């Protein structure tokens, strides 16, 4: 599914009621089946932008359409993996991963089978019956990923999904994500702080500026896949992105 953002802006209000612009004049088109990485300094509005795309909040300016339809609220077709995981503390790992399927009315056996598959995919087999508070940070993050992938959404918004993973798990998860993405033809918007990760995953990389304004750049990653983290061919791109992330 294609995502189109036109002239999108968003401001918050502080306690004195003053306007705090966060996003301004953002134009972006993410093609169907594209994997776009979003880079930008802390507090530049990446999470806010994802929230707008996913329909959790309305933009104050401009409009967002997915698959030609205006986004007016959240939908199970575009699922978000939030920065803070937000697992349901009253459900087990299995229960959390099952959740989306349950909502869709899958039969218990079928959905548990599917949930177990995804728990295995994120490397948490054996933890099915644990509750979130019994898991480590990285494990929780993986549960959130499994929960989102279980429903096979057409569009996936991922907000620093691998931030708490160890290096090995992280690169394994990157590979799994790419596999799924290719197999299912999902459209993915992926927020990360790791330039390396962006280069490994993305079709294109969009860079948000630190002060509200249009994208600093949207760069095509021309490297063939599979990409290797230490591939010297990636170095110029890496330098370019690092430079774009410097404050103006």
């Amino acid at each position, binding site marked *: 599914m294609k995502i189109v953002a036109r002239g999108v802006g968003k401001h918050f209000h502080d306690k004195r009621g003053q306007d705090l612009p966060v996003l301004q004049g953002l134009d972006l088109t993410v093609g169907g089946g594209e994997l776009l990485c979003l880079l930008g300094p802390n507090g530049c509005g990446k999470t806010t932008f994802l929230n707008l795309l996913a329909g959790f909040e309305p933009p104050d300016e401009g409009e967002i359409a997915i698959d030609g339809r205006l986004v007016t609220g959240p939908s*199970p077709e575009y699922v978000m993996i939030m920065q803070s995981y937000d697992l*349901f503390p*009253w459900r087990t790992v299995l229960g959390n991963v099952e959740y989306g399927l349950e909502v869709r009315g899958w039969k218990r056996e079928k959905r548990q089978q599917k949930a177990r598959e995804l728990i295995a995919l994120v490397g948490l087999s054996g933890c099915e019956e644990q509750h979130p508070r019994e898991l480590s940070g990285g494990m929780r993050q993986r549960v959130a990923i499994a929960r989102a992938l279980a429903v096979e959404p057409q569009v996936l918004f991922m907000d620093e999904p691998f931030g708490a993973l160890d290096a090995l798990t992280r690169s394994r998860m990157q590979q799994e994500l790419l596999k799924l993405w290719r197999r299912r033809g999902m459209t993915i918007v992926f927020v990360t702080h790791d330039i390396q990760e962006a280069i490994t995953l993305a079709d294109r990389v969009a860079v948000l500026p630190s002060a509200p304004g249009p994208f600093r750049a949207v760069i095509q990653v021309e490297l063939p896949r599979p990409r290797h983290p230490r591939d010297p061919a990636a170095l110029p791109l890496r330098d370019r992105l690092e430079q774009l992330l410097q404050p103006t």
Partner: protein
Amino acid sequence: MMSVSPHSRRPDLAGERFWSPLLAVLVFLLLWEVAARLYANPYLLPGPWQVGLGLVEVWRSGKLFEHIAVSLYRFGAAYLLAVVLAVPLGLVLGWFTRLHRALDPLIQLLRPISPVAWFPLAVLWFKIGDLPAIFIIFIASFFPILLSTIAAVRNVESTYLKVALNFGSSKWSLLHKVVIPAAFPYIMVGLHIALGVGWIHLVAGEMLGAQSGLGYFILDARNFLRTDLVIVGMLLVGALGLLLDRLMAAAEKKVRRRWGIVS
């Protein structure tokens, strides 16, 4: 102290669960007996000893169990009815902010109405005996449950809702798979408070022509100026209240554990 600070590997001694409450109760009885003796006239303030004699007297009369059974039945019916009506209504009103805003003044207007003020209507609508008592207790339990359910729902973390909506939860599934579990611990506090408030109104409820029950027993004792029996009644009400409370706590603990919330 709460669980965090200094390391405590102490096993959970029986002392904590059993002996220390017993000690507290004994100290209370002692203070009471002393106070009663200071007042000299046992009719003004009967001490625990005299109340004990009163209990024996009532016990011998053989009607005690009937009173208890009848009161439990009335309370149980009223409380269950209040739970069954107030929790869903609270969920709905906690959820639909606009509806809540419309109805809130009415609720707040009706809420502080004393059971005594309901009496004329209660005798009008319900036959003498069980029903008006059930009605009065129902009214008393209803509002605390309603209010705390509304508050619990409104305090549910919005990120949980976000996630659920994102997965396309229907309203109904949102409610029973997310809102209820998330609000549960606080709804429970309301149920707990309502248990006490409703049980308090047993006496008022059994003023409307009931000829049995602990409330009637207390009123009767009061009419006879038998303060010792009034206190026997109070303590029986208290002890049963305590029992109900413990059953509630056990149920709560079980659900909390299933919910993965360690208390």
